[in-house]
């Protein structure tokens, strides 16, 4: 990549973040999540809690890592703050009770049914064009 382009992008992003960033204090460390693993669950949203410090989803999962489960499992999915989720496009009108969802997360080290989301891959069959934490629906 051209050095000048890199420099321009760097300067722009640094300027944007220097202006936008406010003092950050994380609510808790993420050391309980296994950052080396990602689990993908598919199912139905059975609970949505838009709250600070974290937005949470409850999902009745029927598939895990693409494989159908013998019985549905209830998972809790931790997200970021209300402000971050809203900025990412994952608003209360997108994350709705009863919607089908495919979500990728770093699971708990304990192996229990909870994790910290890294990407919402699809909602109601609409795929996400972003591989990161944003929601950019295909065709949106």
């Amino acid at each position, binding site marked *: 990549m051209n050095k000048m382009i890199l420099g321009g992008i760097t300067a722009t992003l640094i300027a944007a973040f220097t202006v936008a*960033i406010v003092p950050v204090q994380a609510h808790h460390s*993420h050391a309980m999540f296994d950052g080396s693993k990602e689990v993908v669950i598919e199912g139905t949203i059975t609970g949505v809690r838009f709250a600070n410090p974290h937005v949470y989803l409850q999902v009745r999962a029927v598939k895990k890592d693409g494989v159908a489960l013998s019985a549905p499992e209830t*998972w809790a999915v931790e997200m970021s703050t209300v402000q971050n989720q809203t900025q990412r496009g994952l608003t209360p009108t997108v994350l709705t009770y009863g919607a089908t969802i495919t979500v990728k997360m770093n699971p708990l080290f304990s192996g229990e049914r909870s994790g910290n989301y890294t990407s919402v891959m699809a909602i109601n069959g609409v795929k996400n064009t972003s591989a990161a934490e944003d929601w950019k629906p295909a065709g949106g």
Partner: protein
Amino acid sequence: MNMWTFTTILLSGVVLTASPAWAQRGGGPPAGPTSLRPPAVTRATDAADPFAAVRAGRQTPQQYQAQYRYNAAVDPADPFHNWGGNLWNQTWEGNWLAAYRDGKTFQQFWNGLQGNGGQSLILATPYSYTSAEEHWRAWRTAANGGRGGAAQPSTPTDWSGQWGGGGAGNVMQRDYYASMSAAYKPRFAMSIQAEIEGRHWWPADSCLPNAYGGAGTWAFRYANFNGPLVHFNNPNPVYEGRYIVVGRDFLPPDQSIPSFMGESIAFWDRDELVVWTKNLHPNMRGHGEAEYSAEMQMIERYYRSGDNLLVDVTRYDPVAYAAPQHSVGVFARAAEYQVPLQNDCVSTNNVFHDEKGWIADVAPGQPGYKDIFDLTPWYTNWMKAEEAKKQGQAPPAPSILELGGTR
């Protein structure tokens, strides 16, 4: 490297890794040479009127703040590896455990984490006061000596709105360590060791207020005035509400109950608010910052200068600190007021610290899981109790509707 990878790395670098605290907290690194240790503090020209130059327009709030900052040089012998407050960003995802799984020793992992020095604070106080009470009385006497010291300023001061920033600036961990008492130095080192190992313990992760931890961080987002009551609050990462009563004394000892945000009284010195806070629970803010004891008392002086709110803070804690500590914050007023969002940590937090001191999370189906999605836990509880009665697990108590009236 594709553009997405590059952008991700760059954003991570800006947000999590390389963002110097001064970039996050407003202002910039102080001009001047670097030094391994903080230079001697500049004594206050007029201790009873520290903001005189700012009031006269000879000094901006940022220049006032810069007097109490310095550039910390990289010290090869620094046991804290020249880190300031951002070490947590390098470790909060359990990075040491991941390195351990990859076969690294702790020493190899820690040696791979090197900070770059940079802006830090001169924590020594520019005042000669040795206690909060002495400090308060001196400022109170000066205020009464021709400047009023009234419960309300003659011209009402409008501090309403959303005030961001306010942090005094990054503090090198070696500077915090040097500032702690002999008894608290090992505790500070222990807290940093925990963060390096991924055993972070931050008050907010247990839904406790961060309160007034490390001198470098100072945050509230909203200020509200209601007659003699000033209310500062900060809704994230946990709700912190702070009430400052103007023109009153502390409650008598038998009514004075310690709390995380403490008890604050204040008087106006012209349009500057002087605040004395005590009766605190001991606390720490975490994120590489310093702990204080229940003995901590704090004197603050606030002054609005345009769209900045300047605060001069002196902390007295003979138990946790080697000497009184001082810092200066500059808040900036947001152009538009944003409605504060409620913080629901108490009803949504399933984070806990296990028997080994590691952070963990209770998941659905596990004992102790707090049902985040149950918005009427009282009804859930009543139904459980009714079921228990049906099962004979509680004394019989028929419905009052079935029993009817008796007169």
